[in-house]
C-alpha cells in the first residue's frame, strides 16, 4: 500500500511521533514523510490529530517521543519562530497576522529592512509588492490587512511564510472560509511554490480539493496513521473508509420534491420587509415558514453574514420592519432576538462562538442559562445531562464534559456551538457556515440534524459556501451579490448551476 519514497533523502521525515495531553492521546507513533515538490495532504476526522502533528513539527507543542528530521538532520523545534528559522513556515487554522497593520508591514513584521537604524518603509513596500506579484496577486500593500478578504489574508500569510526562505510550508485548513475563486487563487500560489521545490503539507476536509491539488495523502484516525498513498492510487470511497474506519452511510431519504407544497400551509414564522442598513446591505424581503429551510448563497463579502447579523440584532436595521408570528418586532440585541426564539451559530467561532477557558459543559448550557436568567441556575445534574446528551448526539470528540473547550479540535468546537443552540430549543435557527471545518462523517450527520430540525417545525436560515450542501437541504435559496438580494430560487429551480449563475451574473 505504502508508496516507495524515492531514493533521495526526504525533505522532512517524522518517525514515531507521540503526544499525550492529560486524558487524551492526541498522536501515537506517527510516521510521516514529505518530499520536496510534493503537496502532501493530511486528512482525518475532527480530533484525529492533524493539527497536533503540525504543532509538534512547528514547535507549538513539545513532542513526548519520536524524531523529526529535516533534510536528514534531526531537529527539535522549540517554538514556531525556531521552526521558521529552520525553514518550516506555517499558516495556522486561524490567520495569525495583525489586522491593523498594512499588508507590507505584516509581511516584514519583525525583520524590516533598516536604513540607518530606521525602518525603510519605501523598501518594505516595494519588496512586499514584488513578492505578491510573483504569485500574480497585485494589491495595494499599504492598506490595512483587515481591508482585504480572508483569501488575500491567507495569501499574505503564505507569502510572509515562504519569504522567510522556507523549505517546508504547512497550511492548516487554509481553504475552509474561501469560495471557489479564492480557492483557485490559493491553489495557483501553492502550485508555483511546488514548482520551486518547496514541500507543502496541507490539511483540508474538502475531498474535491484533495484530489485537485494533492500528490500524496496521509490518513490519520484516533491519533494513529492509517495509511499513506499516492493520490492517483486512492479512490475516494477507500479514502473515506480509511478516515472513518467504516463506510459512509448514505442518507436514505431523498430530497423531497414537494418541499414547497409541504410548507405552503404551515404558518410564517419570520417576515422581513425592506430590511436594510446603510453601507451594509440593500433593502431585502424575506419570509421563512416553520419547518422551512432557506439557504443563503453568495460570494464571501456579498453580505450573507450581514443579513444574519441584522436579523439577529447584532446590528440594527435603519430601514424596514420585521414580524415574528405576524406581530411586528423591533430587535435591538441578540438577547432580544433570543427572547423571540431566534438562535445564531456565528461564522467566526473563535471570536464570536466559543468561550475558550470554560468547559464543554459550560459552553453547551450557556445560551440556555442566559435565557433563563441570573438567578434561575440550572442544577449541576441537569447541566451534565444536557452536556452528555449533546456530546453523544453530535459525537463531539472529548474525553469528558469538563475539558476546556479551547483544547478541543477545531471541528469539535464547531459542534459545541451548535449544541449550545440546540439545547436552547429555538424556533428559528440561523446557521452561518455550520459545516465549516467539519469532517466528512460529521458533515453528513450535521446535514441530517438540519433536516430533522426542519421536520420538527423549526424555521431555518442557513449560510453556506458549499453549493452542493445548499441544494441538498434548502426549500428556497436567497442569493446575494454585492450586498444586494438578487434572486430567490424555489423548488426545482434549485440546483448548483442556477445558483452559480445567479451569484456570478446579472
Amino acid at each position, binding site marked *: 500500500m505504502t508508496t516507495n519514497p524515492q531514493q533521495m533523502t526526504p525533505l522532512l521525515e517524522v518517525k514515531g511521533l507521540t503526544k499525550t495531553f492529560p*486524558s*487524551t*492521546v492526541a498522536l501515537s507513533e506517527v510516521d510521516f514523510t514529505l518530499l520536496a515538490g510534493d503537496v502532501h495532504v493530511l486528512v482525518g*476526522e*475532527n*480530533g*484525529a490529530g492533524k493539527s497536533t502533528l503540525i504543532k509538534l513539527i512547528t514547535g507549538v507543542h513539545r513532542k513526548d517521543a519520536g524524531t523529526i528530521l529535516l533534510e536528514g538532520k534531526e531537529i527539535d523545534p522549540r517554538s514556531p519562530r525556531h521552526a521558521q528559522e529552520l525553514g518550516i513556515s506555517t499558516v495556522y487554522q486561524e490567520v495569525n497576522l495583525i489586522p491593523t497593520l498594512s499588508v507590507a508591514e505584516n509581511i516584514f513584521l519583525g525583520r524590516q529592512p533598516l536604513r540607518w537604524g530606521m525602518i525603510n518603509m519605501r523598501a518594505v513596500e516595494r519588496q512586499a509588492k514584488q513578492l505578491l506579484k510573483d504569485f500574480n496577486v497585485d494589491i495595494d500593500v499599504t492598506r490595512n490587512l483587515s481591508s482585504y478578504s480572508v483569501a488575500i489574508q491567507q495569501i499574505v500569510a503564505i507569502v510572509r511564510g515562504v519569504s522567510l526562505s522556507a523549505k517546508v510550508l504547512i497550511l492548516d485548513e487554509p481553504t475552509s472560509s474561501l469560495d471557489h475563486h479564492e480557492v483557485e487563487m490559493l491553489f495557483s500560489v501553492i502550485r508555483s511554490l511546488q514548482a520551486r521545490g518547496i514541500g507543502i503539507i496541507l490539511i483540508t476536509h474538502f475531498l474535491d480539493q484533495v484530489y485537485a491539488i494533492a500528490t500524496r495523502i496521509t490518513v490519520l*484516525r*484516533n*491519533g494513529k496513521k492509517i495509511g499513506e498513498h499516492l493520490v492517483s492510487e486512492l479512490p475516494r470511497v477507500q479514502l473515506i473508509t480509511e478516515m472513518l474506519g467504516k463506510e459512509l452511510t448514505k442518507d436514505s431519504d431523498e430530497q423531497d420534491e414537494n418541499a414547497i407544497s409541504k410548507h405552503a400551509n404551515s404558518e410564517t414564522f419570520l417576515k422581513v420587509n425592506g430590511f436594510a442598513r446603510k453601507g451594509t446591505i440593500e433593502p431585502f424581503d424575506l419570509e421563512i415558514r416553520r419547518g422551512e429551510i432557506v439557504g443563503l448563497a453568495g460570494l464571501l463579502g456579498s453580505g450573507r453574514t450581514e443579513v444574519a447579523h441584522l436579523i439577529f440584532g*447584532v446590528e440594527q436595521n435603519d430601514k424596514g420592519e420585521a414580524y415574528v408570528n405576524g406581530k411586528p418586532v423591533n430587535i435591538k*440585541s*441578540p*438577547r432580544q432576538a*433570543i427572547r423571540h426564539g431566534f438562535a*445564531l451559530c*456565528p461564522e467566526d467561532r473563535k*471570536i*464570536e*462562538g*466559543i*468561550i*475558550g*477557558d*470554560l468547559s464543554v459543559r*459550560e459552553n453547551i448550557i*450557556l*445560551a440556555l*442559562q*442566559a*435565557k*433563563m*436568567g*441570573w*438567578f*434561575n*441556575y*440550572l442544577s449541576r445534574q441537569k447541566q451534565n445531562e444536557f452536556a452528555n446528551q449533546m456530546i453523544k448526539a453530535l*459525537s463531539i*470528540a*472529548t*474525553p469528558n464534559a469538563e475539558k476546556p473547550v479551547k483544547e478541543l479540535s477545531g471541528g469539535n468546537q464547531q459542534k459545541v456551538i451548535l449544541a*449550545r443552540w440546540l439545547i436552547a430549543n429555538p424556533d428559528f435557527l440561523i446557521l452561518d457556515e455550520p459545516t465549516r471545518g467539519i469532517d466528512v*462523517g*460529521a458533515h453528513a450527520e450535521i446535514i441530517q440534524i438540519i433536516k430533522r430540525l426542519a421536520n420538527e417545525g423549526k424555521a431555518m436560515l442557513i449560510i453556506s459556501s458549499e453549493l452542493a450542501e445548499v441544494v441538498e437541504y434548502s426549500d428556497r435559496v436567497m442569493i446575494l451579490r454585492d450586498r444586494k438580494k438578487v434572486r430567490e430560487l424555489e423548488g426545482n429551480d434549485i440546483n448548483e448551476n442556477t445558483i452559480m449563475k445567479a451569484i456570478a451574473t446579472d
Partner: protein
Amino acid sequence: MNVEGQQANPAKSGLEGIKTLAISVSSSRLFWTGLALFIILLVDLMISPNFFEIRLVNDRLVGSIVNILDNSAPYALLAIGMTLVIATKGIDLSVGAVMAICAAVAVTLIKQYEAGATEFYYQPGFVILITIGVGAICGLWNGILIAFLNLQPIIATLILMVAGRGVAQLITNGQSPTFTNDTLAFIGRGVVWGVPFPIYIAFVVLIFVTLLVRRTALGLLIESVGVNDRASYYAGIQANAIKVFVYVLSGVCAAIAGMIVAGEVKSADPHKAGLFSELDAILAVVIGGTSLLGGRFYLFLSVMGVLIIQSMLAGLYVSTLHPTTNLVVKAVVVLAVLLLQSPEFRRFISQPFGKLSRRRR
C-alpha cells in the same frame, strides 16, 4: 467518535491510585496557595517563637494571629470585590479612594448625629446604609463608564482613584474629623465572643458573595464575559449588566472596608484612608490565582492571598529587620509565592530531578 481508549485506565493498582491523587492534589491551586501560607507562618514562628500564642485580655483575644485576621478584614473585602471585577477582565483602581469617600461620608454624618441632629437619616443605622449606598454609586459610576461608554477599566477607575480623594476632602472640608459614636466605632473595633468584629464582617461577606455567585448563574456568566465578552453577547448574556454589577459590588465592599478603617481609628482621614490598598487587593487576587486576563475566579483563594500578605507583614514587624527593608522583603516574598504557584516554573526547577530519576529507571 474517537474517545475510546483515551480515558485513563480505570483498573489501577492502589499505589498508582495514590500517585494520581497526589498529582491531582499537587496541581491544584488550593494546595500551592495553602503551602505558601503555611511556609510563611512557619517562618513567622521561627522569627518569633510565641507567634501563635493567643491570650484573653479584657474579654478580647490577643495575639499575632488575631491581629493578622483583624488587619486582613478590610483587604479581604476589597479582594472579594476585586476578584469578580478581574474575572470580567476588568480592574478597579478606585477602591482605595472609595474607602476614603465612604469613611468621610460616614464620619461627617455621624458627627451631625453627635451634634444633636434628630433627622432619621442621621441615625447610626441609616448612616451605615447611606455609606454603603455611596459605595454602590461609586461602583455604578465606574460600571457605566466601562460598560456603556466603553472606557478601558484601568482608565475609567483611575479617574475615580484620582478624583475620589478630592471628593473625600470636599466632604470633610479638608479636615480629618474624629467621632465617638459607639455604633460606627463598633464596626472597626467591636469585639464579639473575644473576636474582633471586622473578622466576622469579612467572613460573612465572603460566604454571602460566594453563595451569590456560585449558587446562581452569576459566577458562570461573569467568567464567560471575562473570557470572551463578544461571544457572550452573541449567546444572549447581558454582558453590560454583568460588568455594572461587579463594579457596584466592588464599590459596596470598599464602602464597608472604609467604615472598618474609620471605626478602628474613630476618624476619617481623606488623604490616608485606604491609600494604596487597591494594589494590595489586586496582589491578593493574583496570588489567589485569578488571572488578570479574566475568566476563572477563586474567591476563597483571593482571601487566602490577603492572609499571605498580612502574615508576611506581621512577621516583618516582629522581626529585627530594619523597617526600611520591608518593601523589598515584601516584593521578594510575593515573587516567591507567585513562582511557587506557576506550573511552568515548577516544571522548570523539577526538570533536572525528573531527568535524574528517569535515568535511574
